């Protein structure tokens, strides 16, 4: 039944050794459902593409970056002013990092709202959430590497927040900072996390995530199977969907290039551990809603420090969100769960409103 097109000698040579036909057969079998929410299927791929860009530009930056208190800032200034196209590589790395988090957020919320996490894809959601937290770790650790003022204080605040977690906070804080203060020791550790530990762990979980997606195929929205045969349309993954994916990647690459060239990433002022925090200090935008919440919380809530209440609340919310496939039994049974949609909208609105507030205040 398979169309036996004439193959090149190269293909035959490889096929005799690696059974490529089996692989092609597998790829052809996979199909992508077509419906009015199909557009969301692309964002996982976009996130993956941006991650690949991060790997490539990250390796390029490693050729010149020096991860120490005395040299980090200067080495990035060197990359941006002396190395040919160094400014471009660094700017792409910074922009791509931000777009990757954005794409991952869109991917996560679309999976949430279409309930694609429901049975049997709980593990796909779980690995996806792990990847998301690791991506945040990438962002947080990478932010410090230029060793500028903003990054220095953002790291102080960020690690202090982890330190405020009751019980386990303090030892983790010391482990992350490499001491009780943010110093050159912190920079060394963050550099190690950013360029070695996180990429390794991320890649392993990413492979698991992708294997799960390939094994289980694309999730169909609730009610999709109820449609009659000619209503429920699908598209072959290979090559149709993949080609669309690639076209979108090309567009993303162009957007990235435009942003990197016309809005180059700034370096700022070198960090001085014995200077006051500058006005207008802010973390990266994806941490801003939490930052803004901590800013607005009163010093004490029922005799507990306000920030501890905030941190514990965010931690619990994050755990609940991560475990949603396990407590949303209704969706797994294939029933509509309106309540969850409202929860999702509420979470999204909270994040948007507090992020905007963070920029305005």
């Amino acid at each position: 039944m398979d169309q036996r097109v004439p193959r090149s000698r190269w293909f035959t040579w490889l096929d005799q050794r690696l059974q490529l036909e089996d692989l092609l057969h597998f790829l052809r079998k996979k199909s992508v459902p077509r419906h009015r929410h199909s557009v969301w299927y692309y964002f996982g791929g976009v996130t993956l593409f941006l991650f690949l860009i991060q790997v490539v530009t990250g390796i390029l930056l490693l050729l010149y970056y020096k991860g120490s208190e005395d040299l980090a800032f200067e080495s990035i200034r060197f990359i941006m002013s002396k190395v040919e196209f160094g400014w471009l590589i660094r700017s792409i790395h910074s922009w791509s990092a931000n777009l990757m988090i954005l794409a991952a957020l869109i991917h996560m919320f679309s999976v949430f709202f279409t309930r694609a996490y429901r049975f049997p894809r709980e593990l796909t959601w779980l690995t996806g959430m792990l990847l998301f937290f690791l991506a945040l770790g990438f962002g947080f650790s990478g932010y410090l590497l230029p060793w500028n003022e903003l990054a220095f204080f953002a790291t102080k605040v960020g690690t202090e927040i982890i330190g405020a977690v009751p019980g386990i906070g303090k030892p983790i804080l010391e482990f992350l900072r490499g001491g009780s203060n943010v110093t050159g020791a912190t920079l060394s550790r963050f550099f190690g996390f950013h360029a070695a530990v996180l990429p390794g762990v991320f890649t392993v979980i990413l492979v698991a995530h992708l294997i799960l997606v390939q094994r289980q195929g694309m999730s169909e929205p609730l009610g999709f199977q109820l449609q009659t045969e000619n209503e429920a349309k699908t598209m072959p993954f290979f090559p149709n969907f993949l080609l669309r994916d690639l076209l979108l990647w090309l567009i993303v690459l162009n957007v990235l290039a435009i942003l990197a060239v016309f809005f180059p990433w700034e370096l700022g002022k070198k960090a001085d551990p014995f200077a006051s925090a500058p006005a207008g200090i802010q973390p990266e935008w994806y941490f801003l809603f939490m930052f803004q919440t901590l800013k607005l919380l009163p010093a004490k809530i029922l005799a507990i420090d306000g920030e501890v209440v905030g941190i514990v609340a965010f931690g619990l919310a994050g755990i609940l969100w991560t475990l949603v496939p396990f407590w949303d039994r209704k969706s797994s049974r294939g029933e509509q769960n309106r309540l969850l949609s409202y929860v999702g909208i509420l979470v999204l609105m909270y994040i948007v409103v507090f992020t905007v507030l963070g920029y305005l205040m």
Partner: protein
Amino acid sequence: MRDNETTYTGSSASPPGRRDFLKYLLGGSLLGWLASLLYPLFAYLKPPKTGEVEVSAVNVGKIEDFPKDSGVVFRFGERPALLVRTADGEFRAFSAVCTHLDCTVQYRKDMGFIWCACHNGKYDLNGRNVSGPPPRPLEVYKVVLQGDEVIVSKNV
């Protein structure tokens, strides 16, 4: 308690006591082996205490270096400290570490407060947290004027 042991092992030759002894010996050595593997690893992860110099007093400068109604952040041991000269010429010193989330505070002339840029926390000129998220007052240091030198020391 081990009366069915002989039925499936059939080795009535080795009494349960000896068997248990071997089990605990092997299990114990396995645990010991794991501990000897993990302990150096975790100990390595924990940053060593670098002989943090315990500073008790710092000479910040001459009185005339500090105009009235101004503040300056200076190094006090491993951490920053803040010296404020009030509008009526009085010197006050504090730890410059915000009690909220570890940022470094500054004196804001226009506000008349000590201010933290990170989360908009405010302290008055006695170091008391008066507005915003800081949960505790700033640690107050002692200022001594020796001749025309400003010496800041920790209250012991």
